[in-house]
């Protein structure tokens, strides 16, 4: 498991889901920061500079797409994964335009969930190695 080298910002407004996923992440990641909407997520992002951002899309105050767009403006290379049920294709088109390329499919399937996060972790490791070599 590569995730134990990385910190994650997890943004989800639904309390039960938030607790469940945060517990799963806490057992696998170096550090987990949890926010309940995009405004709090963006604030935590600026403060903690997490390696990976994982977010729901539909949330109050600021949704996952608006937050992702703001984060990409701060750091265009930031890996972001969005939870999606693929029910709203306009959201996903916008997500692709913003530069979000990883999705976690709902309903959550634990193996796929970790495979997707590990895919992002491998990409991060390779990017860091490439930067060190330069």
């Amino acid at each position, binding site marked *: *498991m590569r995730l134990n080298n990385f910190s994650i910002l997890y943004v989800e407004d639904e309390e039960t889901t938030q607790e469940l996923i945060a517990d799963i992440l806490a057992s696998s990641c170096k550090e987990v920061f949890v926010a309940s909407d995009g405004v709090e997520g963006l604030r935590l992002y600026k403060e903690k500079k997490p390696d990976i951002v994982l977010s729901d899309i539909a949330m109050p105050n600021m949704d996952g797409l608006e937050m992702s767009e703001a984060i990409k403006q701060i750091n265009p290379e930031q890996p972001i994964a969005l939870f999606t049920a693929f029910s709203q*294709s306009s959201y*996903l*088109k916008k*997500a*692709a335009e913003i530069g979000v*390329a990883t999705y976690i499919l709902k309903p959550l399937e634990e193996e796929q969930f970790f495979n997707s996060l590990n895919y992002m972790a*491998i990409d991060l490791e390779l990017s860091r190695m490439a930067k060190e070599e330069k």
Partner: protein
Amino acid sequence: MTDNLNKISNLINNQENLEDEKKFKVASASLVCSIVDIEKKDVKKYCSLFQKNFNLDETEFIQIKEQIDAEGLSIDSKVIYIKNELNNNMYQIMQFLKILNKFAIMDGCKPESYSEFEKIRDKFLKEYY
């Protein structure tokens, strides 16, 4: 991401140690077809991406697609072939997967396309997870 995609496209299209560039293109295009299920009428829509990423024009792509349909090779065998052609180089494999990802999410994103991408992605990476 575009820069990275261009880099791997150049690698793919110019790599000196490719024994058979055509075979590599067939395997690559075949995986893309597994993901997005391209019908003949949709080829134009995907053509610029195929041209850019795999150096395939429309005529060549249609020929390859017909070949793929006739051969019926398994996804596993295509994945093994591509990994070998990329010398099991993790960086190149990741760049290749980013190209596949781009096909999977273009035009919004269909759940079947993304699920298929995930299956292929995990076949490439399972030993590294």
